[in-house]
C-alpha cells in the first residue's frame, strides 16, 4: 500500500525519502481508501479548508498594515483600501478576499455540516470527528464576530455594541462576560485590542489545532462513504483519495477562489465613517449570517429566550446528536424525522434572515460618477455656507459628514433641497430651486454618499 517506488522518482525525492521517509508520509496523507470511489459530494470539507487557508494568508497580509487602536484602525483600513501597485488595486483586492472569504467560508461550513448530516456520516464511529467539527463551527462564528469590529467604522462599532449586549443577556455570567470581552463597560480601545488578539492570535492557533485533529481522525476512521450500497459493492468500487478525489477537490477549490476573487472585484468591501460613539441616529446591522439572531431579538419576548435560548438549543443538539442518535440507518430517505426537523430549522433561519434584511433601512445605491458631479454642485451652490462636511463648512445647518448613513431616499433629499420646510417646519434652509433636476439628482447622490465612501487617499 506504500507509494510504489518507480524509476521516475527524482534524486530529490530519493534524498527526501531517505531522510524524512517521504513516500510513506505521502502514502499516509494521500492513499486514503474511499469506499464507493471519489465523488463530487465529498468536496465541501476541502473547500472549507481552502477558504480557511485563504483567510490565514490574506489575514496576515492585512495585519501588515493594520493598526489595532481606535485612533488608527480606521485610518489604516482606509490606507489599505487605497494601496495600489501599478494599476492594480492590491489593497482593496486583499481586503476583498478576506471579506468575501469570510462570508463564503460561513456558507461552506454550513453546506459541509448539512452534507455530513444528510449522509448520516456523524454516526458511529465518527462521533468525535463530528464533535470537533462543531467546535470548528463555533470558531468560525467567533472569527466572523470578532473580525467585524476591526475596521472600526460605524457599522463595526454599532454592530458590536449590539452583539456584545446580546452576550450580556446570558443569565448570571452574562454581564461579567460582556465586560470581560469588552475590557470594561463600554466599547473602546481595550475592546478593539481584545478582539484583535482573539481574531489574529487565539483563533488561528485553535483553528490549526482542531483542523489537524479533525483530519487525523478522518484519516484513521476513514470516510463514511455513500449511504447506499452493501459494503461488498462499495469495497469493490473503492478508490484512493489520491488522485481522483484530490483533483475534484482542487477543481472545487478553484471554483471557490474564482467566486471569492470575482466578488472582491465586483463588490469591494465598503468602509463607513469612522466609529462615532456620539452618533445616536445610526441603526446597526449585523453581518448577514447573524441576521436571524438579530431578528429573533426583535420577535421573541423575553429577549433572552430567543437570543440565548434558540442558539443554545441548536448548539446542544449539534453536540449531542451523534451520541443520542444511535440508529445505524444512514440514508436521509429513511430518517424522515431528523431530516425534516433540520430542514425546518434551516427554513426558519432563512426566513428570519430574509425578514431581517427586509427590515433594514436601505441606503441609496450609489452611482460614483453622479456622486462626483454632485460634489461639484455641493461646493458651488453655497451648501457649505451652512453645512459642515468632514470639518469644512458652516455651522448654521446640521453637520452632513455622515448624512448618507441616515438612509433618506433620493426623493426625500431632492424635496429637501427645494422645500426644506415640508420636512422641517420653520427650517431656515433656502429653497435651491435654481438647481436643474439633474443637478438635484447628483446632489442627492453626493449627500447619500457622505459617510459611506469617498475617503481621502492617504497613500501618497
Amino acid at each position: 500500500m506504500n507509494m510504489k517506488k518507480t524509476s521516475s522518482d527524482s534524486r530529490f525525492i530519493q534524498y527526501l525519502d531517505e531522510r524524512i521517509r517521504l513516500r510513506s508520509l505521502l502514502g499516509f496523507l494521500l492513499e486514503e481508501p474511499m469506499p464507493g470511489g471519489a465523488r463530487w459530494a465529498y468536496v465541501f470539507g476541502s473547500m472549507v479548508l481552502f477558504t480557511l487557508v485563504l483567510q490565514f494568508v490574506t489575514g496576515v497580509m492585512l495585519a501588515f498594515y493594520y493598526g489595532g487602536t481606535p485612533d488608527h484602525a480606521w485610518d489604516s483600513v482606509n490606507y489599505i483600501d487605497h494601496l495600489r501597485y501599478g494599476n492594480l488595486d492590491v489593497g482593496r483586492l486583499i481586503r476583498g478576499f478576506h471579506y468575501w472569504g469570510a462570508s463564503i467560508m460561513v456558507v461552506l461550513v454550513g453546506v459541509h455540516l448539512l452534507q455530513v448530516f444528510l449522509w448520516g456520516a456523524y454516526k458511529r464511529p465518527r462521533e468525535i470527528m463530528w464533535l470537533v467539527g462543531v467546535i470548528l463551527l463555533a470558531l468560525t462564528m467567533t472569527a466572523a464576530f470578532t473580525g467585524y469590529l476591526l475596521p472600526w467604522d460605524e457599522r463595526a462599532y454599532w454592530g458590536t455594541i449590539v452583539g456584545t449586549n446580546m452576550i450580556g443577556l446570558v443569565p448570571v455570567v452574562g454581564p461579567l462576560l460582556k465586560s470581560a470581552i469588552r475590557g470594561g463597560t463600554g466599547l473602546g480601545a481595550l475592546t478593539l485590542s481584545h478582539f484583535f488578539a482573539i481574531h489574529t492570535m487565539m483563533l488561528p492557533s485553535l483553528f490549526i489545532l482542531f483542523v489537524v485533529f479533525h483530519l487525523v481522525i478522518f484519516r484513521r476512521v476513514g470516510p463514511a462513504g455513500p449511504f447506499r450500497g452493501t459494503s461488498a459493492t462499495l469495497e469493490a468500487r473503492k478508490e484512493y483519495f489520491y488522485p481522483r478525489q484530490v483533483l475534484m477537490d482542487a477543481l472545487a477549490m478553484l471554483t471557490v477562489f474564482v467566486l471569492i476573487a470575482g466578488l472582491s472585484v465586483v463588490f469591494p468591501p465598503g468602509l463607513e465613517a469612522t466609529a462615532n460613539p456620539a452618533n445616536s441616529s445610526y441603526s446597526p446591522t449585523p453581518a448577514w449570517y447573524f441576521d436571524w439572531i438579530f431578528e429573533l431579538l426583535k420577535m421573541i419576548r423575553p429577549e433572552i429566550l430567543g437570543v440565548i435560548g434558540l442558539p443554545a438549543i441548536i448548539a446542544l443538539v449539534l453536540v449531542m446528536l451523534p451520541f443520542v442518535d444511535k440508529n445505524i440507518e444512514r440514508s436521509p430517505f429513511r430518517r424522515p424525522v431528523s431530516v425534516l426537523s433540520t430542514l425546518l430549522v434551516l427554513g426558519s433561519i432563512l426566513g428570519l434572515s430574509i425578514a431581517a434584511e427586509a427590515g433594514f433601512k436601505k441606503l441609496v445605491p450609489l452611482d460614483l460618477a453622479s456622486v462626483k458631479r454632485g460634489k461639484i454642485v455641493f461646493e458651488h451652490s453655497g451648501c457649505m455656507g451652512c453645512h459642515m462636511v468632514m470639518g469644512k463648512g458652516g455651522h448654521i445647518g446640521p453637520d452632513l459628514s455622515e448624512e448618507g448613513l441616515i438612509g433618506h431616499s433620493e426623493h426625500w433629499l431632492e424635496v429637501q433641497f427645494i422645500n426644506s420646510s415640508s420636512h422641517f417646519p420653520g427650517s431656515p434652509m433656502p429653497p435651491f430651486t435654481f438647481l436643474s433636476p439633474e443637478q438635484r439628482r447628483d446632489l442627492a447622490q453626493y449627500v447619500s454618499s457622505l459617510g459611506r465612501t469617498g475617503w481621502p487617499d492617504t497613500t501618497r
Partner: protein
Amino acid sequence: MRQEVVFRMGIPVQNASGQAIGTLEKLVFLETEKKITEIVVRDFSSLKRVPLVWIRELTEHVLVLDHPGTLEDLPVFDISQFEEVPTWFYPPGYRIELGSLLTLKPCDERFLGESEAMSRRDFMAKSTGLVATLIGISLVVPIGGYVLAAAKTKLSDHWITLSIRLDQLPVDEPVSHTFNAVSVSGWMRVPVVRTVWLIRHSGTTDPLSVSEDQILGLDSPLEKSRSSPLLTVLSPICPHLGCSPQWFSGKKLFICPCHHSIYEMNGKRIGGPAPRPMDQLPVQIEKDGAISILYEEFQVGIPQKIRLS
C-alpha cells in the same frame, strides 16, 4: 476488556471432523467496514478464501472450522487483486503478524492493471498541479504587489512656509529656525519639530551667497532650480554621522560637537572627518519675502548627496 484475538500465520487449519485441510496464510480486511471478513487458507492445491464466520475455534496452535468437508468449492484467492494494509489500519483487539493483513486494491488498479492505472493517476496528478499553480499565481501576484505597494510609495514633496520673513533675518548671520512639520509613515501622521539653518545674504554679488554644494555640483536638479542668492538653507544634520553642528559667531564657523567637523558659513568643510559640505535644502522666496522650504534628509557618511526617500 475483551480478550485479544491472536492470528498466527502458518498454523494448521482443521475441518469440523478434525482433519487437517490446510494452513492459515493471510487475512482479508474489508476497509469499508474496517473489519476482517475472510481468512486465506492454503490447501493442497491452491489458496482459498474462507469466511471468517466459519471459524469455530482459534488458538495459537490450531484453527478449527465449522465446515465438515474440504475447501474445494470455495473461491480461489487471487493475490494480484489485493495489497497489504498499513499498520495504522489494523483493527483494535487483534494481534496480527505484519504483512499478513490484505485488502482489495483500489478499483482502477484492478480493472486497468497497475501500469495503466499509474499513468492515469499521473495525468490527474498533473491536472491537480496545474490547478494549484493557477490558484497560487493568482494569489501570489496581488500579495507581492500588496507587500511592495507601501515600499514603492513615493514621498510627496511637502513645501512648508516658515513663520519668518526674509526681511526679519539678520544678514550674514546663520539663524537656527524651528518649525512644525508632519512626519508621515503609512497611515500615521506624527507632528514633529524640525530645525534648519537660515543664512541671509546681502546680495547676489556676495561670495557667500553660493553654497558649497552648488560650487561642487552636488545638488539634484530640484535643489539647483530652487535656490536663491538671497538665502541659503542648510540642513541641521551633520553629513558625517548625523550630529548637529553649531554656529560660533565669534569664529564665524559651524563646528560639529561630535567629531569636530568644521564648516564655513556656506557649508564648505574646512576640517574634520565629514565627507562632504553641509547639505543645502531647496528654498523659494515669494515677492513679499515669505520663505518656503522643502525639508529633505540625506544619507550620511558618504561624499555624495543622496536623498532618503
